[in-house]
């Protein structure tokens, strides 16, 4: 049964990911994405990576998607639902997806099943908070700080852009 759960979560995640694309209603799409994120978090948790799973929920489902939904709700959804399919964009999207699938297959083709055994997963709960922390602040300290600075710049940029019109 515990081996059943990852499959279940994967199915939910993929199903709702499709729903994100296929739904005409933006609110439905956004909520599907939330469910997809939750299923992804479930996947992480079933791999004993509690921290990543919880952060997935906290950051993506709890904060980012709420803001998304917030913005979507201020839109005219009826107009959104009336919009016809943009043929060029659709075809372009399909093309990109097809190329990606081809690349995926070409990579997988070179991967010989069973030739490389995975290291066994740690039994019991991982101390992944400490693991992630150590990793971030030792091996990846510079990229982490750079990303921090980048986000700060982005934040300042947003403030500058949005305040300009008020003058």
């Amino acid at each position: 049964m515990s081996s059943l759960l990852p499959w279940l979560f994967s199915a939910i995640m993929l199903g709702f990911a499709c729903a994100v694309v296929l739904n005409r209603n933006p609110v439905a799409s956004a909520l599907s994405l939330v469910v997809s994120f939750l299923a992804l978090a479930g996947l992480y948790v079933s791999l004993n990576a509690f921290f990543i799973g919880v952060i997935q929920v906290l950051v993506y489902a709890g904060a980012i998607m709420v803001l998304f939904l917030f913005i979507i709700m201020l839109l005219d959804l009826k107009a959104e639902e009336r919009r016809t399919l943009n043929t060029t964009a659709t075809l372009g999207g399909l093309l990109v997806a097809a190329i990606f699938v081809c690349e995926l297959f070409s990579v997988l083709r070179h991967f010989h099943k069973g030739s490389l055994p995975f290291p066994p997963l740690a039994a019991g709960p991982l101390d992944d908070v400490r693991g992630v922390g150590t990793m971030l602040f030792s091996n990846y300290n510079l990229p982490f700080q750079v990303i921090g600075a980048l986000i700060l710049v982005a934040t300042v940029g947003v403030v500058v852009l949005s305040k300009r019109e008020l003058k």
Partner: protein
Amino acid sequence: MNDFLGIDWFFLATSLAKTLGIIFLVVLPMVSYTVYAERRISALIQDRLGPNRTGIPFTNIHMEGLGQPIADAVKFLLKEDLTPAHVNTFYFWLAPCLAMAPSLLTLSVIPFGSWLFGVPMVIANVNIGILFVFAIASLSVYGIVLAGWSSNSKYSFLGGVRSTSQMISYELSLGLSVIPLFLLLGKLNLVDIVDYQARNGWLLLPLWGEGLTLRRWLLLIPLLISFVVFTISIFAETNRLPFDLPEAETELVAGYHTEYSSMKFALFFLGEYAAMITGSSLIVTLFLGGWHLPIPWWSSGAGFHFALVDGAAPGIPGILGGLFNIATFFGKVAVLLAFFIWVRWTLPRFRYDQLMRLGWIFFFEIALVNIFLTAGILFYLP
């Protein structure tokens, strides 16, 4: 038997028992009686009496109105369930469920007792307990925002929007205010946090264990600040007065649940009070020692000390101790709930801009500075 089909059946059964027990035997009655307490206390504060009549039906037994929550529940179930025209029916139905579920979910990681029958009194002992609480609590905003949006009403929508921004804003100070704790303890696990407090004194009452050192007393300053910011943020997160802007009835009728009636409204109601219970539980767990109650004891061997009620002890004393600890926990929660109610009937509502300013400019900064303060103390007094 214990390992049939690769599943730990004992674990499953006890977890289920704990879940059902905590929800149906503790939380839901507690919600109902919190509503009752709210009404009685508000009445007493305002020199009234409040509901003091409802007792056993068809008799003259009043029981000081203790039957009121049951009557309310029956009423909620029997009221007409209106679905207004032009609402988005699916989301209109989904929203109350989403409002109710997160508050109950978060309870799963909170240790509400020590041990009972050799079972730890926490539904899920998760390493990152507090983060889990924040993650699930952050989902509760969906119920509100969907309710506001799907009702297709101005009041509801404004209430929903306000609530969303309020909750997102105060999540920041909520999250930041507990970081000093983790700096001190190095753990996110709520069970461990309570254990630490049982051994070394409550975070706000460092009277025993290592609590008698200067470092611990110095640390009390940032912890006190943490406690205040955390408590106030919990007020904001649960939309309680003075932060009940989402349902400010003078402006927004009833905010996001204006269009709801009958059991759907009751679900919002339950969700709100359940969130209050969760919030109080969190405060109790993090700052007030959780299920632990120090009992002054004198024994010839150790002299005067605080005894720990041990639920893990074998036999009858263990069972009694476990029950005592559970009672202690919920007793503390009840006191905090009373405090919530007391505050609600004392303070006036903030203006919305004041609320946002308070969240972003005041509490956010205080929590941030508090982290540095704690880090400094811990650095110089390791």
